[in-house]
């Protein structure tokens, strides 16, 4: 077998030459070739640092690492006759599965004092007149001994930089092929061109083929890759091939050889940022594929493998994600819990995982593997996955591969899996993160039911994923969209609405809202149509269905630099869809405020830039605010001295609630909640709500939600604008703290009707039950709506508009509403 000698040369240092030599050598060896690497950069040797083991470093520093310098000196002074090539060749360990071999002939014991003394002796020997044979014969003898003694397929030479005698010999006489590396720096280019010209003209041994020259332009930054300068350089260099290796800040001069990037092994750069080394690795493998045709397939497969494993590593460790224009944090794997290239099993039955994720830092003796990740190229994924599951007992196995379209593909397997029977693997498409192993029964099972189960158990981290599932099941329209699964979407909404914990309920609302501080990982990125659908069909219903303690926080209009808050939009939706009114306090402020300014400024045509803001205080009450109060409600607060003397507050509230329920004179406004027209404030009285719920065997959250809807409708009938843009502020409730307070039958009948309709639309059985139970125990004013129950909402809305405007009703409408108002017991 002939030996192919490839010399790597650069006119200037710092171009990444030694690292490229080491990596190329290792790749060829891992791919099955016998490779010898020879360090002829005698004045600045370092290849042993790239490839050697700690033992090699130790020997080098103690002067006991013989190498090329010792060999050459021995040849020339005749003392090296008993100096075999095996005495200077170091075997470099490769993974046991590798079929090839890699040997290094270092320069010597650099940087020990002994090395420099030997190098000086060599130089003295070469300077002296010699009868026969000099450096050319010596290096050719060294090359011949390598060929004869080690019989490699490839001899890779790390050549000296600049214009030197040894560099000239390595490139023009020893080499079958020269790989010239240069950066785009002018001095590097100029020197390379001079050397290239000399090499093309250099005499060769009679039996040698013409020298082949390949050029590599290295450290090319991404912004200059396609620049005219680089294009011109490529054209000028000519040669048999010109390739470009990108600059990568993740790769430093400290970098040792990249390990494990051939088939049967894996490669993962230790970098969490962007593509950390990936681009350079990929370009290097592409270059190897073109330069060493015998290993073209291996290099291309390795590149695919490297990219797949690299992306997996990045997926596992990326601590932030960019979703819908915002960067959010994610609970990624700590790097110390990940380990690359771990072999399991013994002998021929062993396999090497590309990445193993542990339940503790991997240096801990108690660390157990949670997930095995292996890239496969050609083997049966199902079989390999089953081997891993049986061998390691890791809960999850991820098999990476390339799909037919050249993209990466990954399949997840688990020992508890809810397998797709067609493929024997999970349908989860992303790699599990640490919390998946504690929150999910099966980390590969991210079905809607599994996610909802996790949320029910308090794992709010799955809310984003659930919302995405809801979108997938709901985002269908006339013009396309995701699969249409309305029953699943309904199940998601109902489960989220059943959340009891206030903090979790708050997280649910945040996950489904489009507030300034939150962007869910919904399908698409910045899709207004989807945003609107999620807001109106998921968030808004949940806002009314979840416990009011959570909902009210999102209903406030404060702190909204990027537009109206989600809660305000939900309230506006209620006003528009149920009452046919427009609720937009900002528009009210602008319209009414401008009217005031117009009156005060007179006939000026110049806008007053700041005048409007000075009026904002006057319009606070036009924006509904919400409050949960622990105080006693107005109807349970003693209003006279006699009442105060006769009872204490706490017992009075209990008695009032109990008496009203018993006498079917329960009211919502004034007892469970209230709407203060002067402040535009909706108040819920928590103690009264709790008592009412207790007496009626209802859940306080449902009584609270009914009250919240009821009082919000009161507020909207007061502050909403009709299509003409008019407000009818006179249509307002009597004040509940008035000693002569009586519920307004007209207001309550209409409000109860709309409350009922809204709850029906929400399709919340528990809420509807609460409303019905409460209604039966309420005063006639609150029961009057029963007469309207089956009337079309358009009719009632029309009547409501007329009454609100004070124009009255005529004909049948007047009769129906009048009958309802006058009935004592419905």
């Amino acid at each position: 077998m002939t030996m192919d000698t490839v010399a790597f040369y650069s006119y200037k240092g710092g171009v990444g030459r030694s690292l490229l030599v080491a990596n190329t050598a290792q790749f060829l060896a891992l791919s099955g070739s016998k490779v010898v690497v020879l360090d002829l950069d005698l004045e600045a040797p370092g290849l042993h640092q790239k490839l050697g083991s700690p033992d090699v470093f130790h020997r080098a520093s103690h002067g006991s690492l013989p190498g090329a310098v010792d060999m050459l000196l021995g040849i020339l002074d005749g003392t090296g006759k008993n100096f075999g090539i095996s005495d200077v060749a170091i075997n470099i360990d490769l993974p046991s599965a590798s079929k090839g071999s890699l040997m290094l002939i270092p320069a010597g014991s650099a940087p020990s004092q002994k090395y420099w003394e030997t190098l000086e002796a060599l130089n003295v020997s070469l300077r002296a007149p010699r009868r026969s044979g000099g450096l050319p014969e010596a290096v050719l003898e060294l090359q011949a001994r390598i060929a004869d003694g080690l019989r490699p397929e490839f001899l890779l030479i790390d050549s000296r930089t600049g214009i030197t005698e040894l560099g000239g010999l390595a490139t023009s006489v020893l080499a079958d092929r020269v790989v010239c590396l240069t950066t785009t720096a002018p001095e590097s280019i100029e020197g390379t061109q001079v050397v290239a010209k000399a090499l093309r003209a250099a005499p060769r041994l009679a039996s040698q083929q013409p020298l082949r020259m390949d050029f590599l332009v290295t450290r090319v930054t991404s912004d200059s890759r396609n620049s005219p300068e680089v294009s011109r350089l490529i054209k000028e260099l000519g040669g048999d091939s010109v390739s470009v290796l990108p600059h990568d800040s993740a790769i430093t001069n400290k970098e040792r050889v990249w390990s494990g990037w051939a088939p049967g092994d894996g490669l993962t750069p230790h970098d969490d940022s962007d593509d950390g080394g990936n681009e350079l690795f990929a370009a290097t493998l592409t270059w190897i594929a073109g330069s060493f045709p015998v290993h073209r397939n291996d290099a291309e497969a390795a590149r695919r493998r490297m990219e797949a494993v690299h992306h997996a590593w990045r997926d596992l460790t990326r601590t932030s994600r960019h979703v819908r224009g915002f960067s959010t944090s994610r609970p990624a794997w700590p790097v110390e819990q990940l380990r690359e290239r771990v072999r399991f099993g013994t002998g021929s039955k062993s396999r090497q995982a590309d990445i193993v994720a542990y339940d503790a830092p991997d240096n801990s003796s108690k660390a157990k593997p949670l997930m095995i990740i292996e890239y496969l190229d050609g083997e049966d994924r199902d079989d390999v996955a089953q081997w891993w599951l049986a061998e390691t007992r890791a809960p999850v196995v991820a098999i990476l591969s390339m799909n037919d379209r050249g993209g990466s593909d990954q399949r997840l397997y688990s020992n508890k899996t809810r397998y797709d029977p067609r493929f024997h693997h999970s349908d989860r498409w992303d790699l599990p993160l640490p919390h998946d192993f504690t929150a999910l029964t099966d980390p590969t099972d991210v079905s809607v039911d599994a996610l909802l189960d996790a949320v029910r158990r308090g794992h709010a981290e799955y809310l984003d994923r659930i919302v995405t599932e809801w979108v997938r099941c709901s985002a269908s329209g006339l013009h396309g969209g995701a699969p249409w699964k309305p029953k699943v979407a309904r199940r998601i909404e109902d489960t989220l609405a059943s959340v009891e914990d206030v903090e979790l309920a708050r997280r649910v609302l945040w996950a489904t809202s489009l507030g300034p501080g939150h962007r869910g990982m919904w399908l698409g990125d910045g899709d207004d149509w989807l945003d609107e659908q999620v807001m109106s069909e998921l968030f808004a219903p949940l806002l009314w269905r979840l416990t009011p303690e959570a909902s009210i926080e999102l209903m406030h209009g404060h702190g909204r630099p990027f537009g109206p808050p989600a809660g305000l939009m939900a309230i506006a939706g209620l006003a528009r869809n149920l009452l046919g009114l427009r609720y937009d306090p900002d528009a009210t402020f602008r319209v009414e405020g401008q009217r005031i300014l117009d009156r005060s400024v007179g006939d000026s045509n110049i806008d007053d830039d700041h005048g409007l803001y000075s009026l904002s205080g006057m319009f606070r009450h036009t924006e509904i605010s919400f409050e949960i109060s622990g105080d006693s409600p107005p109807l349970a607060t003693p209003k006279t001295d006699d009442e105060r003397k006769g009872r204490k507050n706490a017992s009075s509230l209990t008695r009032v609630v109990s008496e009203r329920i018993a006498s079917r004179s329960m009211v919502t406004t004034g007892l469970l909640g209230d709407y203060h027209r002067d402040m535009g404030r909706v108040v819920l009285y928590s103690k009264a709500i709790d008592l009412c719920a207790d007496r009626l065997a209802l859940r306080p959250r449902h009584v609270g939600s009914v009250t919240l809807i009821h009082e919000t409708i009161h507020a909207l009938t007061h502050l909403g604008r009709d299509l003409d843009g008019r407000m009818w502020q006179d249509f307002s409730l009597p004040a509940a703290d008035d000693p002569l307070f009586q519920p307004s039958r007209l207001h309550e009948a209409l409000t109860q009707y709309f409350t009922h309709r809204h709850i029906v639309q929400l399709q919340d059985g528990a809420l509807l039950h609460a409303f019905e139970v409460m209604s039966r125990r309420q005063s006639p004013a609150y029961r009057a709506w029963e007469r309207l129950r089956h009337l079309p909402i358009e009719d009632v809305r029309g009547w409501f508009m007329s009454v609100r405007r004070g124009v009255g009703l005529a004909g049948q409408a007047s009769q129906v509403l009048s009958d309802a108002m006058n009935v004592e017991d419905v």
Partner: protein
Amino acid sequence: MIDIDTPVIETLTEDDLDTLVSIAIRRAEVLEDIGSPTSHEAWHEVMTYEERLAAITPAFEITGGIARAGAVRAALAAGRRADAETLASRYLSDDSLPAERRVAITVAFAEEEARLAEIFPALAKSGRLTEVQEWRVSVANRPGVFPRAA
């Protein structure tokens, strides 16, 4: 190769040169035996005298034939392979050079090859030793910055 037209050399007679070359050969052999780095210069001196002798004596005469073979052998010993090959080429083209002198010149090269093969056994085994010597000749006086190995 030295310039044999150098006036001093030209003034020497055959007897002078015989005397000088005997002394020079002896001196070079001693220096070589003791490993002196100056032995190459001594052999160069021998080459100079032998080459002059060859110039002033016919090839078919004993003195002339010995001088010619001696000049080639001395050039090889001086490490001046290119000079040796030039001289050998010139002398062997003279039909009047006796056969035994021709053999002597050829043997000189063969012995040199043997010496090299002992120093560079693997190179010799690969069959490239001769190629290297030829390569040396081709780059001996070659201008250019790179390579300048030879």
